[in-house]
């Protein structure tokens, strides 16, 4: 291969060119992570001062926190429902974006716009749409005769989490459908033509040819989405701050509340370590997938 003909330089010569990246990785990734781990084993007092080592006390406190089990259950639902529904809706959506028709461009733009807006803006818009006194939603529901009195969909524990799920799916759609669209566009036309010649129908072509070829893009979209959704702080925080009570918290917002409301930074750090490990697994999965993909392509 080409690499064999290039004279091998000692690694240290590359250092000046890599120093920027190394600095960024050490300063902004490794060091904070290390600090987080250390913090989870420390006693930190109510004003944020480090008092000494705590051993496993923070983890013990977290395990004894009776609000943790429902939050964990909800985090799993959050992850599975948002990622699952996003993929389920994105598959046909990508197909539609790939189809040639008048207004295709318009469709593509209108799907990308929610992605271009910051999550805080989107979440704030929805918060106002759902506002019990001034929001559009109550007006529409009342005009349609579905409800008689104003309701607060975000203030009621039984509906607020569902609303958050819907918004989270809405903001995840653009990215996912575009990844899938890119996957669709990489499927060679000849394969589809051959299928047509052999007499395969629409559904059959989709499930036996398009979907298997789409698999790498599908898996990448799933994993990246899982990371985003798991970490998603702004939607929940802006719309409900995890409330009422802890009824709409996931582990991310719960960690924040433990640190800044309950003022227990150590316990919060131990939960954040847990969050970090989950993300770490996702990242490993993603790297593995990219490797498969490379292997597929060569």
């Amino acid at each position: 291969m080409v690499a064999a003909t290039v004279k091998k330089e000692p690694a240290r010569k590359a250092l000046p060119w890599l120093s920027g990246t190394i600095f960024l990785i050490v300063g902004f990734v490794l060091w904070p992570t290390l600090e987080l781990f250390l913090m989870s084993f420390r006693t930190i007092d109510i004003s944020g001062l480090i008092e000494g080592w705590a051993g496993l006390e923070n983890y013990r406190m977290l395990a004894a926190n009776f609000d943790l089990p429902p939050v964990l259950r909800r985090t799993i639902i959050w992850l599975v429902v948002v990622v699952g529904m996003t993929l389920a809706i994105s598959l046909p959506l990508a197909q539609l974006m790939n189809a040639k028709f008048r207004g295709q461009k318009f469709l593509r733009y209108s799907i990308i716009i929610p992605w271009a807006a910051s999550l805080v803006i989107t979440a704030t818009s929805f918060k106002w749409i759902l506002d019990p006194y001034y929001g559009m939603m109550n007006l529409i529901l009342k005009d349609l005769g579905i409800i008689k009195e104003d309701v607060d969909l975000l203030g009621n524990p039984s509906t607020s989490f569902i609303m958050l799920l819907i918004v989270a799916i809405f903001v995840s759609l653009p990215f996912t459908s575009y990844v899938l669209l890119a996957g669709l566009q990489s499927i060679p036309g000849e394969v589809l033509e051959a299928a047509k010649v052999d007499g395969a129908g629409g559904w059959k072509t989709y499930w036996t040819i398009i979907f298997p070829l789409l698999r790498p893009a599908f898996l990448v979209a799933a994993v990246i989405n899982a990371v985003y959704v798991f970490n998603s702080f702004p939607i929940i925080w802006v719309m409900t701050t995890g409330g009422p009570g802890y009824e709409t918290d996931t582990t991310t917002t719960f960690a924040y509340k433990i640190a800044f409301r309950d003022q227990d930074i150590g316990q919060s750090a131990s939960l954040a370590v847990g969050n970090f490990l989950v993300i770490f697994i996702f990242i490993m999965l993603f790297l593995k997938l990219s490797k498969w993909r490379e292997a597929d392509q060569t």
Partner: protein
Amino acid sequence: MKKFRTRIAAVAAMSFAATFAVAALPSQAEDVTLKLVMAAYTDDMVDYYDGLAQDFENANPGIKVEVDVVAWPEIGQKVKTLIASGQTPDIVNNDEFAGEAAAGLLYRADQIVSAAVLKDIIPAFLDNSKYKGTAYAVPDLASARAFFWNKQLISGAGVKAAPKTWDDMLAAAKAVKKKYPSVYPYCLPLGPEEAQMIFTTWGGGNGGRLFNEKTNKYTLNNKEFKGALDFLKTLVDQKLTQPNPGKTNRTDGCWALFAKGKVAMVDGGVFLPDWLSKNGGENIDWAAGAFPAAKGKTDITVGVQDYFKGYKAGGKQKEIQKFLTFIFEPTNYQGFLKAAGGFIPATKSAGKLAEEDPIIGPYIKLLPKAIFYPGTVGSWQACKASIVTYMGNAMSNTGKALQQIQAKCDAAHKKVK
């Protein structure tokens, strides 16, 4: 709001520029710079501190003052972050001190103001600034709460007298609901802004107190508080409140509805009239009085006081003392109270003047009836946060909420001791 943001951005930009300037010119005459983080009672605080800092710098060459005026929901966290990252400010004005006093971060009260100022502080307020018998903060002002009602709606519904007991209040609420179906008879703010106030007020009206000094324990999960929450739940269940108590905040929720005439009864405070006049409620014909209490219990008001604190980290005790003594000079302190908007002064001299004030005066007379938060207890801030969080969902199960609150507050208290 916008004003604060630009200001914060400006301060950030300036300190950024200053870092470079210092790096470029290492040897300059050494001014001492006091770093202040002050609560934004109103938007007027920014202008007030601008003027005050200017006057102070003119009177005290060699001392520079950098003021960061921060909105209430952010100030606690901001101070915590500054301390944890080694950038402890020199003076802070907010609503907590005991945790910091326990951590040994603060100068004593007698180190941060002159003896004359300290003598002028109202003794009850100074007592609330003590940690283990020593004052570590100087009260800046106080407030007391009262029950407000819309006279037009209440008498329009045929209610003759102001509700004195819970039964009166329930009857009044039903009457209002019947006469004006689109009005919420009572607005219950259990949102994160100040749910602990509702807890303290209505529990207090049933004889409940948050903390027992003698046993050194929180006293939250008991029949007094249970009774109060159950009473509030009755109002909610009978649709006599707004539909979403767990999410409604005091100011942008209940008061905003009260200002629009959509609410007949609301928990207010000495500063509510000022707020109404600035937020579109100037035409509301209101009256205020004691909170309705449970049958056979005495009515109470809740007093809240905030603090000035000086931090040891920068070692600027002399300068801190100069500045805080300056702020208590009569004209400066009147300016402070005016900018803050309708609070009860913390000094005897200013208190005398305020007794003549038609709005503030009655509250000063109410103060003997006031119960205060246990602000001298180191774990109170953490306990308060738990009360706020669980009150958000308390109306679905009052007993469970009280159990959870008690458990979290006990855990926090054990940790601080």
